[in-house]
């Protein structure tokens, strides 16, 4: 993992001291709220419905045990004993007091964490594949480049006041688990004709009120020119992005309104100016950063086949967990495993301080002290020996974290919704809970198979409803909540935006509506191997529309 150098430490320490003094001045009445609000937002401190909310960055979703233990300590000492992992691989605390925030930031800086650039019209936390550096299908570990981008984008003087916030996601694997086509910039590792690895660059993707699939702006940018190329995109956006209308200010609108070829021409013109200049990434610097992400000291093990069927007979819960929560590792004898934060009836993404400590202990003992946060609001132990799986599972059972439901219908994304969020129009968590309880049966979940439900409490789409195979969007109608259902979204390399099929549903009717869709799928699929999204693409919306609204 990356470790702060003296510049990082000084930068974060300096910011803690600066913001601590700003908090002191605010409480003393030397600053009013109009003056203080932009300062607190620069440090990830929002005001939500019931209290402040502190959003802490987990750079590219990678953490050490020490860092997760610190988050547990903060949850217990300054908050209410739990934290909420988000769709941007961050963590949020929902109940901090303003006077405690300087101490929290001090605690975070002691483990090389902070909340800088988790708000505001700047480049936000760069997200990656949660299996980066471990996945069997990976071409390259994207995290060294993500770290270089983090350093480039932190307090970038030119890009601290962009027209709107700016999100970058990367994947080093052809199977996109980071939703790169739905970010302002998406980066996918590719090899050129000579076999050299570089980056395919996608631009103008996004969700929110105007969902758009990103467009490929460059099929191959070599490592050494990536910073210059991204800076060129940001410069074009910073210059031409709309500042007159907040709802049209994202780069996706600029690309859509001007056309990809126009934007591409402007980016190329800018790139021609800066290419080969100070932003050229020296190989020695890339090598230096790469050493921080060198593979851990794996043992030389034989490839190990896990007899899931046998284990399922002996212990069905363990069998389900093996079947659903493991991801193939590039190192024989190892796997990556998903720690589900989606217990039946729970709040998606929530983990107690005790659970965080349990996962930190497991990461330390069984995963080379490393863990990940996923954009689907789960945790990952990236490097676990197959031989240790039973011990890890037993410890997860004790921590109530052993749900074997990764990728199943109960593994939902949900934003905090109107229970917490000042922007929301409707609640999300109770909908997720009700659906989870509706489909609590493990046999039923297994019968349905891969299915992604994503729930947002407003059009800003933090719950990624547009890219859910089934998406649910809460809206306000006549003082109450109404939920629109979309079908056919997909955040992967087969990117698509879901479509609304018809009128919305009241909250209590949503679980039954989802069940009708699921029943329609199960009845019409060619075989259990045909997933929900594959069946939807083959069948079209008609049978699902009929299931929801009748034949009329």
């Amino acid at each position, binding site marked *: 993992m990356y470790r702060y150098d003296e510049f990082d430490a000084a930068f974060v320490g300096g910011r803690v001291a600066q913001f601590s003094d700003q908090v002191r001045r605010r409480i003393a009445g030397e600053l009013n709220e109009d003056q203080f609000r932009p300062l607190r937002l620069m440090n990830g401190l929002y*005001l939500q419905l*019931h209290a*402040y909310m502190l959003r802490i960055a987990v750079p590219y979703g990678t953490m050490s045990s020490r860092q997760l233990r610190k988050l547990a300590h903060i949850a217990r000492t300054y908050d209410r004993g739990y934290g909420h992992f988000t769709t941007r691989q961050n963590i949020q605390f929902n109940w901090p007091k303003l006077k405690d925030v300087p101490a929290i930031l001090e605690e975070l800086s002691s483990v090389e964490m902070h909340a800088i650039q988790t708000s505001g019209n700047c480049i936000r936390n760069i997200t990656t594949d949660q299996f980066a550096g471990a996945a069997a299908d990976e071409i390259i570990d994207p995290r060294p480049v993500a770290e270089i981008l983090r350093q480039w984008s932190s307090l970038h003087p030119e890009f601290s006041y962009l027209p709107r916030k700016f999100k970058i996601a990367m994947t080093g694997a052809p199977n996109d688990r980071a939703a790169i086509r739905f970010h302002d910039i998406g980066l996918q590792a590719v090899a050129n004709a000579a076999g050299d690895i570089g980056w395919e660059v996608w631009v103008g993707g996004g969700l929110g009120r105007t969902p758009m699939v990103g467009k490929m702006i460059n099929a191959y940018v070599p490592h050494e020119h990536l910073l210059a190329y991204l800076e060129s995109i940001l410069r074009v956006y910073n210059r031409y992005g709309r500042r007159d209308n907040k709802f049209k200010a994202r780069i996706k609108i600029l690309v859509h309104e001007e056309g990809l070829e126009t934007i591409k021409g402007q980016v190329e013109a800018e790139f021609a100016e800066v290419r080969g200049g100070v932003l050229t990434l020296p190989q020695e610097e890339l090598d230096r950063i790469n050493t921080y992400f060198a593979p851990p000291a794996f043992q030389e093990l034989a490839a190990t086949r896990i007899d899931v069927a046998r284990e399922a007979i002996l212990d069905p819960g363990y069998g389900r967990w093996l079947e659903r929560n493991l991801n193939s590792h590039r190192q024989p004898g190892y796997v990556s495993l998903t720690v589900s934060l989606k217990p039946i009836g729970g709040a998606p993404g929530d983990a107690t301080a005790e659970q965080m400590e349990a996962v930190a202990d497991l990461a330390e003992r069984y995963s080379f002290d490393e863990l990940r946060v996923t954009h689907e609001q789960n945790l990952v132990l990236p490097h676990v020996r197959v031989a240790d799986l039973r011990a890890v599972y037993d410890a997860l059972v004790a921590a109530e974290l052993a749900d074997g439901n990764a990728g199943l219908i109960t593994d939902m994304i949900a934003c905090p919704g109107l229970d917490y969020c000042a922007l929301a129009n409707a609640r999300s968590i109770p909908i997720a809970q009700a659906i989870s309880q509706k489909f609590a049966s493990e046999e039923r979940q297994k019968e349905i198979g891969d299915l992604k439900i994503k729930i947002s409490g407003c059009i800003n789409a933090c719950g990624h409803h547009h890219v859910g195979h089934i998406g649910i969007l809460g809206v306000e109608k006549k*003082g109450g909540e109404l939920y629109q259902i979309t079908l056919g979204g997909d955040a992967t390399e087969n990117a698509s935006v879901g479509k609304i099929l018809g009128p919305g549903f009241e909250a209590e009717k949503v679980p039954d509506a989802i069940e009708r869709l699921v029943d329609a799928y199960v009845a019409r699929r060619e075989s259990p191997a045909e997933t929900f999204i594959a069946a939807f693409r083959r069948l079209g919306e008609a049978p699902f529309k009929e299931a929801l609204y009748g034949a009329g």
Partner: protein
Amino acid sequence: MEILTGNELISGATVYLDRRGQWVEELQEARVFAVEEGEARDAAIAATKATLRIISLETEKVSVVEGLLVPERLRERIRAKGPTAPVLDRQHLYEDGHVSI
């Protein structure tokens, strides 16, 4: 009918202006401003802003149902009680969180 609500600076807790000019946690203690009391409401807003201690200050429409104040917006009903899923207690004021105008 309207009430004044906001969040207290230190705790962030949801608070309401009561009839004594104090910012309190309990919705049912909120001072209700009738339509013709706009001047008094605006004076209360100005006095509150001068304290610098109440943020996200808003007026909210309420009605009286069976003798209880009920905000018209669901958002405000949730603010008054705390999150519904899971059900959690709302944020409370601390000793240094009492504000009056």
